[in-house]
């Protein structure tokens, strides 16, 4: 399995019905692929559609046309056209995502937030919790916080919970939306190391990193999203 993710001729626009139906183009004709063991970084200025692209792949945004092909277990699934049930199954088994912000659930302890994706895949709760503890320790989250719900944590603490949650499984594709944005240098280094481990294991990663140092350290290839943007500067 060399190429777990292929994006082919994908276009996306938003139609804003509350603003007289104006159409906002986001990206057009996006084609690229991510090989296993590779970390592809999306480049380009803010607002060019990098996060949108990740959301399309994860299924949060629908696409207007094109294909998003994912190797899911022993078949190929086109996420652009498949049904919700298959997307949920692909998310559970194959496609992981570390979002920019953690969506917290009231009353659920940080350690259980992290363990949840493993439990959803059938791992026993105590084993999943052990693994979660390992990751939280690695990310230097104070142990006193593990049993608390993350809603009141600082930005950096929430982000580390989010990263641990995304990295706990052995998903074959991982989408990263600025996972290091609110971390200090020490923890950024931990994340860089964790990404390197994922690459070693053959995971295909696609991410957004504004921090140049991190980008240099993890990227095998930078994909300039600007070339897919309809808002690209008119020839100068």
């Amino acid at each position, binding site marked *: 399995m060399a190429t777990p993710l292929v994006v082919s001729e994908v276009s996306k626009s*938003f*139609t*804003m*019905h*509350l603003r007289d139906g104006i159409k906002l183009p986001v990206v057009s004709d996006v084609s690229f692929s991510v090989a296993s063991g590779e970390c592809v970084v999306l480049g380009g200025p803010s607002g060019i559609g990098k996060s949108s692209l990740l*959301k399309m792949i*994860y*299924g*949060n*945004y*629908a696409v207007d046309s094109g294909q998003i092909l994912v190797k899911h277990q022993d078949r190929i699934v086109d996420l652009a056209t498949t049904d*919700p*049930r298959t*997307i*949920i*199954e692909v998310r559970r088994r194959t496609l992981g995502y570390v979002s920019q912000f953690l969506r917290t*659930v*009231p*009353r*659920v302890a940080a350690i259980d937030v992290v363990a949840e994706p493993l439990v*959803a895949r059938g791992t026993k709760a105590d084993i999943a919790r052990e693994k979660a503890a390992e990751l939280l320790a690695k990310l230097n989250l104070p142990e006193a916080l593990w049993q608390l719900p993350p809603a009141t944590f600082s930005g950096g603490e929430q982000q580390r919970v989010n990263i641990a949650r995304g990295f706990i499984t052995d998903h074959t594709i991982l989408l990263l939306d600025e996972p290091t944005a609110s971390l200090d240098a020490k923890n950024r280094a931990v994340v860089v190391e964790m990404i390197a481990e994922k690459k070693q294991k053959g995971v295909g990663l696609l991410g957004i990193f504004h921090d140049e140092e991190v980008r240099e350290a993890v990227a095998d290839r930078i994909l300039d999203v600007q070339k897919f943007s309809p808002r690209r500067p008119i020839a100068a």
Partner: protein
Amino acid sequence: MTDTPLLKVNDVSKFYGNRIGCKNVSFELWPGEVLAIVGESGSGKTTLLNCISTRLMPTTGSVEYHMRDGQYRDLYHMSEAERRFLMRTDWGFVHQNPADGLRMTVSAGANVGERLMAIGDRHYGNIRATAVDWLSRVEIDESRIDDQPRAFSGGMRQRLQIARNLVTGPRLVFMDEPTGGLDVSVQARLLDLVRGLVNDLGLAAIIVTHDLAVARLLSHRMMVMKDGHVIEHGLTDRVLDDPREPYTQLLVSSILQV
């Protein structure tokens, strides 16, 4: 993934005289799947829920259910007795107002035990032990087992109603605004509880709510209704993050941020 739907809803419509309750609704629900039906008051959500759960006879259309013996049965071609048995054992129905789903003048333990007796349990000790277990799962202290729900707070009543519904190990639960009349801290507790139980038990559920945050937290898939029609349908994340229909965009953009 199992490859047979638990429930098949085919072209269900309900008219109240000339008025539309809901029109031409079709979907399938799989085991373990949670579907949210959202929309404003009067959009037909509850009518649809009642039609699917046989509490209301639709004007046209059919609803098929995958019985435990592996056969599909059309719910409207079952006898009343069969339907009642199904509702008491394999299904649950959580009402917005707990008083509609509980027997207010018998004890909490009896409320839970009654459903067990309906499926043939006769051993008092076992029934009481199961009731105690379920009360603790919905975080009601064992010491309250002999109290009547009349003496419970709104949040406790709602948790008791959930215990009463889940004690028989149903495969499908209908919920009509389960967090409707509760204040937010009680709501959060109930949501967390429902979410945990649905995950642990692998329940399929259809939840009617006007609260999009509740839908996001609990459901996999979402249907948006307006004027009796399903106007948008898809993965919950997709409908909320990238709404396509004008009305859904209005609904999503009207959420207050905290």
